[in-house]
């Protein structure tokens, strides 16, 4: 039920709040507005909560805070400023020296496609392409990326046109939950170039002979993709997707969406089963 807001009660302010009010008379007006709002829409707890947050944010954004204030903008200790190219766009970031490239992408640049799986270089979910090479962004300090060019899953498609590897993953059902997929796809895209350049792997039969445009067997793909773990076990379909792009041989799609008619038929079928 609605709570009465007793305006006569003196609220005890913390030192921070008192300082805020003194420095920023508008805040008390915001407070007034808030009281009115609460009076009108008293029971809407969530709305009140949101308004409260909004008021606070507006207030804090508007003032120059002293360095001692709790919400003062923090000077980053050991900060490093780096300029790099992310998906073709120049970006400059000021980061704590401890920030990984992965956290920089996700938390600073809002590129949340790269996933934090293990954060210890064991799963490959954070794989991105730096200067043409696939690397683990969780074991890369953002501070080391000055002048580098980073491609994430967000940078692969050309507008609405999917990258062939993205399309192949969908067509071949190369994922279930999808969490490892951005890393898998970035890894696979880089792998295509490695094969073109004639790079070898541990399962390459003869490492002494060299050739460009290596034709990858399924075993080669498995070995070369072993740094990307898929908990759902979509490996056969991941290999199929990569093989389709690598070989250029179009494979038949093995799945399709249900049509509305099929849906209806299935529901009828279920009903019959239920009555048996």
């Amino acid at each position, binding site marked *: 039920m609605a709570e009465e807001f007793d305006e006569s009660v003196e609220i005890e302010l913390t030192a921070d709040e008192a300082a805020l009010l003194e420095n920023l008379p508008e805040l008390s007006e915001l407070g007034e507005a808030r009281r009115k709002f609460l009076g009108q829409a008293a029971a809407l707890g969530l709305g009140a909560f949101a308004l409260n947050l909004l008021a606070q944010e507006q207030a804090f954004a508007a003032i120059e805070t002293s360095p001692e204030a709790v919400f003062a903008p923090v000077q980053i*200790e*050991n900060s*490093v400023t780096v300029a790099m190219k992310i998906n073709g766009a120049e970006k400059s970031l000021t980061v*704590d*020296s*401890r920030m*990984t490239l992965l956290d920089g992408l996700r938390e600073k640049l809002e590129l949340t496609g790269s996933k934090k799986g293990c*954060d*210890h*270089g064991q799963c*490959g979910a954070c*794989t991105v392409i730096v200067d043409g*090479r*696939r*690397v*683990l962004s969780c*074991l*890369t*300090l953002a*501070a*080391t990326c*000055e002048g580098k060019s980073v491609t994430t899953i967000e940078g692969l498609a050309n507008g609405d046109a999917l990258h062939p590897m993205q399309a192949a993953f969908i067509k071949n059902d190369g994922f279930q939950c999808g969490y490892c997929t951005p890393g898998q796809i970035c*890894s696979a895209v*880089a*792998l295509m170039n*490695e094969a073109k350049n*004639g*790079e*070898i*792997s*541990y399962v*390459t039969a*003869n*490492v*002494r002979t*060299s050739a460009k445009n290596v034709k990858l067997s399924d075993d080669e793909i*498995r*070995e*070369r993709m*072993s*740094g*990307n773990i898929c908990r759902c076990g979509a490996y056969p379909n991941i290999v199929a997707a990569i093989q389709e792009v690598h070989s250029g041989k179009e494979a038949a799609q093995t799945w399709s969406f249900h049509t509305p008619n099929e849906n209806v038929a299935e529901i009828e079928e279920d009903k019959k089963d239920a009555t048996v």
Partner: protein
Amino acid sequence: MRPFKFSSASDARNAVQTISANKDAKFLAGGTNILDLMKEDVERPTALVDVSRLNLTQIKSANGGLSLGALAKNTDTANHPLVRQNYPLLSMAILAGASQQIRNMATNGGNLLQRTRCSYFYDVAMPCNKRAPGTGCGALEGINRMHAIFGWSEKCVAVYPSDMSIALVALDAVVKVQGANGQERSIPFADFHRLPGDTPERDTNLNHGELITAIELPKNNFAGKSYYLKVRDRASYAFALVSVAAALEMDGNKIKQARIAMGGVAHKPWRATEAEKMLVGKEASAANFKSAADAEMKGAKPLEHNKFKVELGTRGIVRALQMAMSGGAA
């Protein structure tokens, strides 16, 4: 992760001086191991000097052999035409380790300085003489399936994890390092890493501040008959239970020279000198390989959970030698 000061070095001399002046400072190259250990609070440097942009990335012919820049990436080293052609054992060993992403980041110098993956070393709530000298060894009486069968001490039974280094010790590599006053020295690969003894906290004979600048490989005649065998719990992307680097030089149907080194069995790359000696002058037969393997493994002292490594090591040596004879990597 604890706070640290980051700087990027533009010349080796300054980098070495910066590190030498602060006992808690560390070099940063590929970062694939140290960053993980910092997240785990095992490594706690107060400053990192990024040396990855130093001009130490060349791979080039030198003194009839090959010089590998310390900051060349593992991928670039494994794929270099001169490495593939003349030292295929090294290509195979590098490619047996980690994943493509990690090899793309990891440098040659950094690979040598990998720390053990012993789970007691990694877990700061556990005793570990390597991480916290004097706290004891959790693995000695604990779960030690992955641990050493050669050269361990009561203080530490951890194994050294690198694959690349197993090939390098077999190939008689030499590590070139630069010290604080610009002086350089060369360390034979077999003397670079240490057995644990009473000081397991020291993995190598590098002094604080010394920077690896290159790894030199002497000329050899092993290229046509060498193989790196890695036995692990998964088919790929796992540390070795046992690995064997094997290389043979033949004189007619007799073995002129043999090089055998093992990974996953000791605190350092384990050069199987007993087996090597046994093979010189013998025919390359399965029986001779088995005798050589037995001679080497006779010295093994397995722990509670890794007795299987003795038989695995014996079979591994035989198998790697057979693969080397049949052309192996070639």
